[in-house]
């Protein structure tokens, strides 16, 4: 009987050891242990005008090599810069005081991290010190906004008035999409209807009452936020002295730019009429149809 019992005990012990071995395997081989476990480290402050999507425990890298992590992100009331505390490995204690901390994105759509580019100062940052030179996160929207003149953040909306505009193509614009001017959301798309007579899209825009000085020759364009983001209506102010009123029509419009069209324009050097350009781009400057 005791023989029987001890064999159970041995088997059970083996099972428990095996289970813990599996746990150890999961914990050490498949997780970023470095994210939790840290050796001796020191803390450095950095102030950013915009942290983008930076999160706690995001990596801090020098020359692309991880040297620490983001300890905390806070916004002091009354300040307009985010206070980011970086916890950096003690081994890397010779970071020049004039080094630049920049928020980078790994890849096009990846996570964000802080990269430190060395300066030339003889002085080094110490525990509790501050990296004075920073570059905020480059928002993809901002970057594209520089190209297309759009991008920004949403805003709270109060009372609204409506104007409408005709587009030959609204792309994938949906009801509720933001209406932006100078990149700032000033309203939203109230309805999108196809006009049965003129065969185009009639889009009604609800614009915040505060923005009642929009010139009536302003143009409305359908833009995409980011590379694969949602679409929104951007209003580019005109020069007329008269302002848009409730129920007015915006005459000047620019329809949604399809990414395919854009790429097609690059590939075939601007022959915009060729709607199949994206597919035929490579072969179009040699012999068409030979493929």
């Amino acid at each position, binding site marked *: 009987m005791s023989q029987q019992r001890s064999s159970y005990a041995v088997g059970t012990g083996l099972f428990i050891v095996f289970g813990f071995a599996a746990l150890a395997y999961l914990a050490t*081989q498949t*997780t970023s242990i470095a994210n939790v476990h840290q050796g001796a480290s020191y803390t450095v402050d950095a102030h950013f005008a915009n942290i983008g999507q930076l999160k706690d*425990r995001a990596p801090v890298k020098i020359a692309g090599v991880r040297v620490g992590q983001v300890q905390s992100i806070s916004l002091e009331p009354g300040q307009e810069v985010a206070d980011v505390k970086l916890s950096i490995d003690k081994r890397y204690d010779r970071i020049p005081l004039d080094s630049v901390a920049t928020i980078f994105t790994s890849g096009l759509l990846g996570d964000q991290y802080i990269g430190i580019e060395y300066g030339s100062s003889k002085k080094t940052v110490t525990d509790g010190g501050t990296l004075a030179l920073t570059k905020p996160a480059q928002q993809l929207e901002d970057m594209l906004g520089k190209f297309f003149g759009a991008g920004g953040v949403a805003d709270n909306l109060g009372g609204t008035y409506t104007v409408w505009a005709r587009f030959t193509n609204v792309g994938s614009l949906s009801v509720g999409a933001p209406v932006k001017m100078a990149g700032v959301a000033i309203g939203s798309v109230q309805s999108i209807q196809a006009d049965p007579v003129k065969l185009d899209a009639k889009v009604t825009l609800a614009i915040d009452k505060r923005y009642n000085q929009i010139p009536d020759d302003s143009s409305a364009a359908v833009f995409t936020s980011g590379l694969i983001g949602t679409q929104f209506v951007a209003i580019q102010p005109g020069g007329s002295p008269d302002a848009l009123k409730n129920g007015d029509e915006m005459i000047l419009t620019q329809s949604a730019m399809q990414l395919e069209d854009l790429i097609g324009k690059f590939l075939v050097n601007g022959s915009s009429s060729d709607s199949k350009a994206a597919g035929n781009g490579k072969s179009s400057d040699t012999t068409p149809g030979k493929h």
Partner: protein
Amino acid sequence: MNQRISQDKNVVIQSLTQIGNCGLFLLTLLVAVPRSLRYIRETIRQLWFVGAMSLTIIMVCGLFVGMVLMLQLYHVLSIFGGTSASGMVVALSVYRELGPVVTALLFAGRAGTSITAEIGLMRATDQIDAMELMAVDPIAYVATPRFLAGLIAMPLLTCVFCAMAILGGHLVGVTWLGIDNGTFWSNMTAQVDLHTDIVNGVLLKSLAFGAVVSLIAVFQGFATPPTSEGVARATTRTVVASSIAILALDFVLTAFLM
């Protein structure tokens, strides 16, 4: 119609009674824990039975879950050119949801049913009453060791399941579909977090599931009507109640832990 309503009412009242009895039973079990320390060998024997003997099915199922998950993800992610992330997605989905849930469902089927059937038959053949006559506390000798064994076994089994799922994903992804080995691991280690994924996902969830499944199994065993039909019904109820409890609890835990 009236009869129908009163029947429905009966069902509701019955289920509420069951839940209430189950909660009281949990209290009795917990109170009996110090007393059952005398029967530590019984706990070890049960751990061998519900844990070690379940290893085969857990390992095989884990392997296949990982393999099929990788296969599906590879095809979906290849649409976006993101196949290099598939190892990471396999790891995250296994750690956070599939590992604990599937292991608990298998555990309910493999160990929960046999616990219910065994205790039910003990009742049907008056062994429980005999124990009481011999001044052996059936709760401390029969119920608590099985409950504790389930509680200990579930997290360990879940870890084994997850490890096998990762290996299965590696097997299909790297060996068969040709994802780069280094990318597979580095993407995984970059995204999997020890605290949120392993501790909260794997360990806490599986501990909760282990408690619920073994509680239901032991409770149903003790609540069995002492007939052969009663044992059969109780075994079925164990599986049904455990499955519902696992999936509902999973939602609640995810909502709170994530």
